[in-house]
């Protein structure tokens, strides 16, 4: 199996639940977070307008605890905007986003930063700090937010790297990593403080099939191991449907379909069908909106006389 060397220490890691109980990372019982409720993220009637252009319209989503939920759709449909609204980097035009019972856009700067300490985010191309080594990238949050001694930080960082199969690469610089390795390091960084919510922005973009499969497996296993919730924004159908519990399909800023991965595979919704089977034409038109070509030709001919 391709995963054997990478997950050689996985069982041992899970027997010693370091990822769940390390002093830096146990956030249960923190003020303001309602850990008992079923859903971790709730989005209600969310609208977001950018420069008077509606980006998201009437979005309703629920992200249950411990589940991996995918948000799918074509590029520019508003998927990443949804993540930024959940993370509080953008404010909704109307509606609300609740994370752990707290309305994100109503939090002050301190409250928002406190909430973000319990979130992890994997950016599209990793967004690793290029002036820091792999080790320092993962240690970054621990050094910024905790008073842990350097020896303990070292142990924690190596555990995180071991979890993504890159313990041996801790001294490398980001420029020395392949695309797949960079994504795994970014994943280790996203789980550095054992977050309750992990957001993935196009985690599969630009990866070779092996790296793609590794990252997919890691998303599923790390979510389960941490007891976290994951939101995967992606347009990679095959890989994501293998690992997710629930899918939302977004088109032109609206949710057009939702359901389990199995339900989506057999969906008869034209948009979902076109998306999953990669059809060139359908509800998402091949042609960019324009006037009928014949009409334009006739008009040009009339002008020439």
């Amino acid at each position, binding site marked *: 199996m391709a995963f054997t060397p990478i997950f050689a220490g996985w069982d041992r890691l899970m027997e010693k639940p370091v990822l769940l109980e390390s002093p830096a990372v146990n956030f249960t019982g923190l003020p303001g977070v309602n850990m008992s409720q079923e859903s971790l993220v709730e989005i209600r009637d969310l609208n977001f307008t950018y420069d008077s252009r509606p980006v998201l319209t009437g979005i309703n989503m629920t992200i249950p605890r411990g589940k991996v939920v995918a948000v799918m759709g074509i590029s520019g449909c508003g998927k990443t905007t949804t993540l930024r609204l959940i993370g509080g980097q953008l404010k909704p035009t109307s509606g609300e986003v609740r994370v752990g019972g707290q309305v994100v856009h109503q939090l002050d700067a301190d409250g928002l930063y406190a909430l973000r300490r319990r979130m992890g985010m994997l950016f599209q191309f990793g*967004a690793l700090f290029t002036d820091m080594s792999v080790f320092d990238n993962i240690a970054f949050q621990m050094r910024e937010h905790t008073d842990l001694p350097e020896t303990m930080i070292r142990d924690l960082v190596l555990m995180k790297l071991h979890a993504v199969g890159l313990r041996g690469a801790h001294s490398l610089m980001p420029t020395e990593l392949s695309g797949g390795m960079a994504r795994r390091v970014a994943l280790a960084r996203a789980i550095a403080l054992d977050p309750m919510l992990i957001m993935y922005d196009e985690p599969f973009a630009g990866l070779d099939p092996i790296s793609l499969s590794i990252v997919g497996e890691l998303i599923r296993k790390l979510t389960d191991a941490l007891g976290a919730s994951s939101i995967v924004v992606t347009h990679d159908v095959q890989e994501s449907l293998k690992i997710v519990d629930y899918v939302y399909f977004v088109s032109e800023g609206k949710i057009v379909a939702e359901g389990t991965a199995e339900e989506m595979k057999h969906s008869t919704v034209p948009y979902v069908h076109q998306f999953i089977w990669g059809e060139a034409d359908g509800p998402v038109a091949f042609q960019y909106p324009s006037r009928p070509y014949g009409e334009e030709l006739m008009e040009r001919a009339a002008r020439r006389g």
Partner: protein
Amino acid sequence: MDNGLARALRGLGQQVNSRIWRLGYASRFFLAIMLHSGTSLRRLHLTLREVYFTGVLSLIIILVSGLFVGMVLGLQGYDTLARYGSTEALGVLVALSLVRELGPVVSALLFASRAGSAITAEIGMMKATEQLSAMEMMAVDPIARVVAPRFWGGVISMPLLAALFSAMGIFGGYLVGVQLIGVDEGSFWSQMQASVDFREDILNGVIKSFVFGIIVSWVAVFEGYDAEPTAEGVSGATTRTVVTSSLAILAADFILTAFMFTGT
């Protein structure tokens, strides 16, 4: 014709409006840097690291340029002073030219090209590759962690570089004037010591270089932070840093010199 004129006026108004808006935005950004400077001072190693990158790594260009500027001053100064039979005042001419004017201004222009552009490119690339967004999502304020240390690193480096530029320039003037042309060494140094006033000349030069340090560092971090997150956007921001800060340095130099001018 009327339409063309109206369009031109509208375009001009829009340009002026957007420039004023951007200046306001830059001012708010400066205020944000001041408010978030606590981290830079508490964790001094972050700022010292930037002093190394902006200051120490600019040393070669500053020292070599200072040497050549001083050597040229020695030659040109000797030529002019010889006409009045006062070549022994060469030391004064070289030293005053450097500490009052050329040291702060030329070193600031070089600093803007060498370090200012590097700061803009670095912050711009961090923005383009989502490193700043990632930092925000990790509950770390990029203005406190990335921008403020670079700003203060530049502000601290600039007066030190200007002082080294002036020192190297005086040495260049000495090499040409005394060693090459044969001006009396005693006159060269003693007249310099007698005529250069600490408060009027040296302190004013230091104040200038400090102000130029603020201008270059502010423009550099702002342009980087405000850059379009694309390769083209970052290259445009880098160019703007050099152009804007060079013009601002020259304008500020005139204003500061006018304030410092005593007429004696």
